[in-house]
C-alpha cells in the first residue's frame, strides 16, 4: 500500500519531467527558428514550465492547503 | 469655533501663498506656469495643513483630562466619514496630477523651427557650450531673449545637472547619452548655471555664466566669437 503510493508519485515525477523536456525542445526550436517576435511564446512556455515545477515538484499548494 | 478658525487661517495662508515672493524672480517662459502651479499647490497644502493643525490643537486643549481615569466615548469609526476623507484627497491629487501633466506639456517644445540649438558638455568641473548653427564654442552660455533654446546635454565623465534657478527647469547631463532641455529666456540679465548633481570634489563650485541679451547683441557676440 505504502510503496504503491510511492511508485505512483515517482511516475508522476517522470511525467512532469517529460512535459518539461518537451517544452524545452519546443522552446529551443522556436528560439532558433523564429528570429523576431518569439518572446511572447517563449515567456508563455517559461511560465508554464515554472508553474509545473512549482506545483508538482515544489508542492506550492501545501502553503494554503490544510494538512490532511 | 473650529470652522471659523480654520476659515480665517486658511484665507490668510492662501493670501500669503498667492501673493508673496518665495522664489528668485522668474526669467524664462517655463518659469511662469511652474510658479503658478507651485502657488496653487502651496495654497491647497496650506489649507489642509491648517485644517489638521487646528483640529489637533483644539483636541489637545479642549479634550485634555490630565487626572481623569475615565475612558472616552466608544466611537470605533464612521463609514461615511472615512469614505469622505478617502475620496476628497483622491479627487484633489487626481486634479493636481492632471494639472501637472498639462503644465509639463506647456513647458515642452512649441516651435522647433525657431529653436536655437546648443550642445552642452559637462565635465569635472566645468561646462562647455557649442552653437552648431553658428559654429562657435564658448565657456559661457549667451542667449538671445525670447527665443526658444534647445539644450542638448551630455557629459564626459560622471552625471552632472544643468540648472539656472531663474529658469526653473533642470536636466541631468548623463555620460553616454544626449538629453534635451527646452528653455525660453524672457528677461535680459546675467545668471548662473549650476551643477545640480553631486559630481565629486568641486561640485559646489561648478558653474558657468549665463547671459541673456537682446537679439541684436547676440548677433554681435556671435560675430565677435567667430573672428
Amino acid at each position: 500500500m505504502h510503496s504503491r503510493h510511492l511508485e505512483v508519485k515517482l511516475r508522476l515525477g517522470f511525467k512532469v519531467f517529460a512535459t518539461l523536456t518537451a517544452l524545452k525542445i519546443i522552446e529551443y526550436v522556436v528560439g532558433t527558428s523564429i528570429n523576431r517576435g518569439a518572446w511572447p511564446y517563449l515567456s508563455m512556455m517559461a511560465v508554464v514550465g515554472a508553474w509545473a515545477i512549482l506545483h508538482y515538484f515544489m508542492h506550492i499548494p501545501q502553503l494554503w492547503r490544510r494538512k490532511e | 469655533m473650529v470652522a471659523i478658525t480654520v476659515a480665517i487661517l486658511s484665507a490668510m495662508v492662501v493670501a500669503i501663498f498667492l501673493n508673496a515672493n518665495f522664489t528668485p524672480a522668474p526669467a524664462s517662459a517655463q518659469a511662469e506656469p511652474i510658479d503658478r502651479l507651485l502657488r496653487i499647490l502651496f495654497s491647497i497644502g496650506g489649507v489642509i495643513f491648517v485644517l489638521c493643525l487646528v483640529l489637533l490643537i483644539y483636541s489637545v486643549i479642549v479634550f485634555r483630562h490630565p487626572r481623569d481615569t475615565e475612558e472616552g466615548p466608544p466611537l470605533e469609526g464612521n463609514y461615511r466619514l472615512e469614505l469622505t476623507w478617502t475620496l476628497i484627497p483622491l479627487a484633489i491629487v487626481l486634479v493636481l496630477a492632471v494639472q501637472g501633466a498639462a503644465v509639463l506639456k506647456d513647458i515642452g517644445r512649441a516651435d522647433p523651427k525657431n529653436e536655437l540649438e546648443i550642445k552642452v558638455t559637462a565635465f569635472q568641473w566645468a561646462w562647455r557650450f557649442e552653437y552648431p548653427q553658428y559654429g562657435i564654442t564658448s565657456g559661457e552660455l549667451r542667449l538671445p531673449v525670447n527665443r526658444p533654446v534647445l539644450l542638448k546635454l551630455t557629459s564626459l565623465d560622471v552625471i552632472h545637472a544643468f540648472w539656472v534657478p531663474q529658469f526653473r527647469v533642470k536636466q541631468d547631463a548623463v555620460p553616454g547619452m544626449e538629453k534635451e532641455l527646452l528653455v525660453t529666456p524672457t528677461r535680459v540679465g546675467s545668471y548662473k548655471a549650476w551643477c545640480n548633481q553631486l559630481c565629486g570634489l568641486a561640485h559646489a563650485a561648478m558653474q558657468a555664466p549665463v547671459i541673456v541679451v537682446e537679439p541684436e547683441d547676440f548677433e554681435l557676440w556671435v560675430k565677435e566669437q567667430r573672428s
Partner: protein
Amino acid sequence: MSTIWKLGVIRGIVFGLVGTVAGMAITMLLRTALGLSAWNSGQATALGSFVGLIAYLGGLGAFNGWVGWVLGWPEKEHDATELPNWTRYFGFHTNHKTIGVQYMVTSLLVIIVAGIYQLIARLETAQPGLQFMTPRTYNSLISLHGIMMLGAVLLGISGMINYLVPLMIGARDMAFPRLNALSYWVTPPSVLFFLFSLPAGGFDTGWTAYAPLSVRAPLGMQFMLLAFYLVGWSSILGSVNFLTTIFKLRAPGMGLFRMPIFVWATLATAFLQLIFTQFVGIAFLMVLLERLTPLGFFDPNKGGNVILYQHLFWIYSHPAVYIFVLPGLGVISEVVPVFSRKPLFGYRAVALSSLGIALGGALVWGHHMFAAGMESWLRIPFMFTTLLVAVPTGVKIFSWLATMWLGKIHLDTPMLFALTAIVVFLIGGITGVPNGIVPVDLYVHDTYWVTSHFHHTLFGGFVFPMMAAIYFWFPKVTGRLLNERLGKVHWSVMTAGFFITYEPMFWLGLNGMRRRIVDYDPAMGLGTMNLVTTIGGYLIALSMLVFFINLVASLWRGATASANPWRSRTLEWQVSSPPPGENFPVPPRVVGSPYGYGIPGSVHVIVSPTGGSGEKQAT
C-alpha cells in the same frame, strides 16, 4: 580571562581579524598566481572583509546551531534565559527580547555617530565660503550621514519589531530564533565598515552612490557598499522572520483583524523589505563588481547604461522610505488611542492603509528620476502613482485626528512625541506633493526643498515615533519608568530644534540652495537662513543629550514600573515588566479588538500567567 572568552563578541572579533588577514593573503596569492602585482587594495579588502565576516560569525557561535542540526544533535530552539544576565547581550543569544534591545542600542549608537558627522558638516555650511573643511571631507561626511542614518533606521525598526511583535501577537519567540540572532549579528561588522569608510578615503557620491561617480570614488566607497549590503541582508533575513512569525505564530483567536496596527505595519514593511532589498543589493554589488572586475554595467564604453543604476537603486530606495516610516506610523497608531482613551478610529481602514501605502509605494520609484533623463514617457504614469500614495497616508492622519476627537487626552511624553510626529509627518506629506508633480519637481529637485521634505517624513515617520516608542515601551523593556520631566524637556527642545532646522530649509531650497554643496554663492543671500538651520541642528543635538542622560539615569535609578503603567490593552502589557523569558508559558486567548477603550464589556485578551487558575482579563 575565560569569562571574557565566553563572550561571543570577543571570540568573534579575534576570529574575524584572523579571517580578514587570511582573506587578504588569499587575494595576494591568487593575484601572484595570475601573474599580477600582489597588492590591489580594492580586491584585498573586499575578499578580506568577506572571509573575515564568515570567520567572525563562526567565532561568535552563529553557526553552532545549524552545524549541530546538520550533524544530528538534539536541538534547542530558542533561549528563554531569565533577564539579569548582562553577558547575553554580547553573545549569540536567540531570545527576541535580547535581540530587540541589541538592535535598538546599535541603532542609537549609529544615530549618534551619523548625527555628529552632520553636525560637523553643518557647521561648515553655516556661512558661505570654505571655513575649515576640504570639499572631500564635507562630501564624505554628508554621504556617510545619509547612508548611516538609513542603516540606523533599519536597525531601529528591526529593534522595535523584534521586541514588540512576538509579544503583541502572543508568541513565545520569533519563528526562527537562530536566524534572528544571525540577522542582528551581521550588523556590527557593517557598522564597523561604515566607520572604516572615512579613514579609507571616504567617498563623495552622496548616500545614493550614483554610478559612475561611485565607480571612480576612493576605497571608502567600497566599505560603504559592503556595509549597506550587509545591512540589506540583515533586513531581508529579518523580514522572513517577521512575516513567518505573523503568519504562523499568532495566539489562538488572534485573527488578522484583531492584530494591533503596529503588527499590520510590520507586515507591510516586511513585505517591502523582503522583495525590494534585493534590488539595492544587486545595484551595490554591480558597482562593486565594476570597481573590482572588468564587468561594465554603467560604463557606456562597455555597453553599460548609467540610468540602469538609478532604476535598480530607486526600485528599492523609494519603497525603503515606506519601510522606514510604516513601523513609526504603527507606533503612532498604538500610542494615540492609549492616551486618548478611545478606540482607534476606523481600525480596518488604518490597518489596510499600511498595505495600501506599501503597494502604492512599490510603483513610484521613477519620481526620483524626473530630471535624470529617464525615459520621458514614464514621467506621467509615475506622477499619478506617486500622488495616489497621498490617499492612504491621509487616511492614517485623519484617523488619528478623529481618534483624539472627544477623547480623554493625557499628555504624557509618548503622546507628546506622537503629536509632534503627526504634525511633522503631515508637513512632510504635503511638501512631497510638489516633488511628485513633474514640472514643479524639475525646479525643486535636488535642492534643500527636497532635503527638508524627506527629513520631515523621516523625523515624522521614524525619529519622533521612535522617541514615542522608547518613552512608551521603556518601562516594559527595563521595568523602570523614564523621567517625565526630563522627557518633556527633551520633547520641547527637540520639537523646537526640528522646526528651527528644517522650516528655513524649505525657503533655502526655493531660493536656489542646492543639495550637497560645501559652499554657496554669497550673492544669493542664503547666509542667514543657513545659520538659523545650523543653530536648529545643534538644538536637536542638545535634546538628544538630554535624552541619553534620561535613559542612563532612569535605567540606573528610575521609578519602578508596574506591568501596565499606561493602562494599555494590547498583549505586551498583560505580562510583567520586563516580560518573562518565554513571554507566555501558556498561550493567551484573544477574544476581541485591541483598541476597545471605553466600550462596555470589550475584552482583548485573556492571559493566564500560570496556566489554569488566576486568569486575568485585559479591559
